[in-house]
């Protein structure tokens, strides 16, 4: 295991780079996913269809292909940004489809009777949404949304292969092939890095789930 101990600083750098990919993508995919979800449940048919198109496209395309488009297709069209930007963009586009579905199914899981009861009291659309539907939807959204985001954290490893460099995944690649370390210990190190992220996130998610849990 000296492969890991000798290169601890490389691992730490990689870990931090991965974290920053994750944080940017987290913000991006939540915002975009909510927007797409809003258009999917809006009463305006073209928006709904657009939302459906978006979800169908990005759910059915491999992340790798999305990233290829971002890293090689967009520059071909004259959009030049850093590979970090393109990597995060690809991850955000891909994840937004899953965020959208998690949010939408959360909203749909609120029994229609709850909204009917609210309307019967004379609550307006926005009161109904803010007082009754969304607070309850939030509680059902948290677990699947958490899983989607944790999956995104894991998917961030793929971004590393698209020119970003210096993240946890490509640290592994550098150590093995350029510096000639054995693959097994190096990638056990990489795996531990990701486990730290995903297991921590999983634990936080459980705490959050318990906080928002509802007695039914």
């Amino acid at each position: 295991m000296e492969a890991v101990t000798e290169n601890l600083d490389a691992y730490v750098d990689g870990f931090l780079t991965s974290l920053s990919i994750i944080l940017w993508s987290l913000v991006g995919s939540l915002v975009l996913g909510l927007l797409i979800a809003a258009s999917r449940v809006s009463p305006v048919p073209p928006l709904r269809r657009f939302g459906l198109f978006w979800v169908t496209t990005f759910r059915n395309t491999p992340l790798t292909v999305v990233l290829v488009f971002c890293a090689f297709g967009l520059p071909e069209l004259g959009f030049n940004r850093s590979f970090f930007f393109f990597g995060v963009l690809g991850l955000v586009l891909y994840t937004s489809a899953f965020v959208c579905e998690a949010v939408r199914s959360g909203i749909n899981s609120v029994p229609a009777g709850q909204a009917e009861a609210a309307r019967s009291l004379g609550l307006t659309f926005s009161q109904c949404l803010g007082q009754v539907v969304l607070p309850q939807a939030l509680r059902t959204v948290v677990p699947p949304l958490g899983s989607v985001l944790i999956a995104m954290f894991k998917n961030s490893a793929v971004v590393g292969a698209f020119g970003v460099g210096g993240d946890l995944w490509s640290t592994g690649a550098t150590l093995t092939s350029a510096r000639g370390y054995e693959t097994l210990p190096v990638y056990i190190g990489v795996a531990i890095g990701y486990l730290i992220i995903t297991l921590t996130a999983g634990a936080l998610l459980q705490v959050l789930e318990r906080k928002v849990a509802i007695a039914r």
Partner: protein
Amino acid sequence: SGGESEEAAAEPTVAEVPEFEAGTTMAELAEQGTITVGTKFDQPGFGLENLEGDVEGFDVEIAKIIAAELGISPEKIKFVQTPSAIREEVIEGGEVDMVVATYTINDKRRERISFAGPYYEAGQQIMVAADNDEITGPDSLKENPDLTVCSVTGSTPAEQIKPYLADPGQLTLFDEYSQCADSLSNGQVDAVTTDNVILLGFVSESDGDFKLVGEQFTEEPYGVGIAKGDVAFCEFINETLAANEEAYAEAWESTAGQVEGAETPELPEPQPCS
């Protein structure tokens, strides 16, 4: 995939019924009548897979010369794609009999495998867009930390450019040089660095969009990677190369040598086998 090369070069004469000492790799291969060779599939001039699935290039021709001496005709060679990062592994794992893949000889690698050759002396250089006057050599990178340079994950050039960088973030890594070339052409990176001959291939393909700048700043002797400690096979390869001067020159001229400004090299002195 893999496959046999077409008549890209004049085919070396295949030895009739070669005799080898029993138990050697040569005897085994000659007996078997086939050989598996690791090479690159994405490197114009050295090893590039065309749409039909055949590989073409200098490395491929070198492999054919060696195979011919074993009594193996070109169509009996199986080419396997070996990008930089997996070359040692495939040799260690016995998945290939040898690797001819712009493979720089160095001591770190010698810990895991052995090299025959070198069969070519390359050197690392820098390729930029034709209209780029800002970069004149590796030192320009240190002067301007905004410039980015691309190379391949796990390759020696990627390691060797690092001292010339002001900031590690300047280096972009992909798993194939062709991706670096794409990124250079669409402006995502400012330079690509690796061995000059590889770069020459891209320059010639680019219709004048790319150029090489500065002198070569390293020495990259290309060797044939073989199983560690197979001295007999190593010596056999060295002898074969030395004995086939004409085929060697022809191999160069029909492949990498077609690039403008490339001179036909002399076969370098072999390093001792170990």
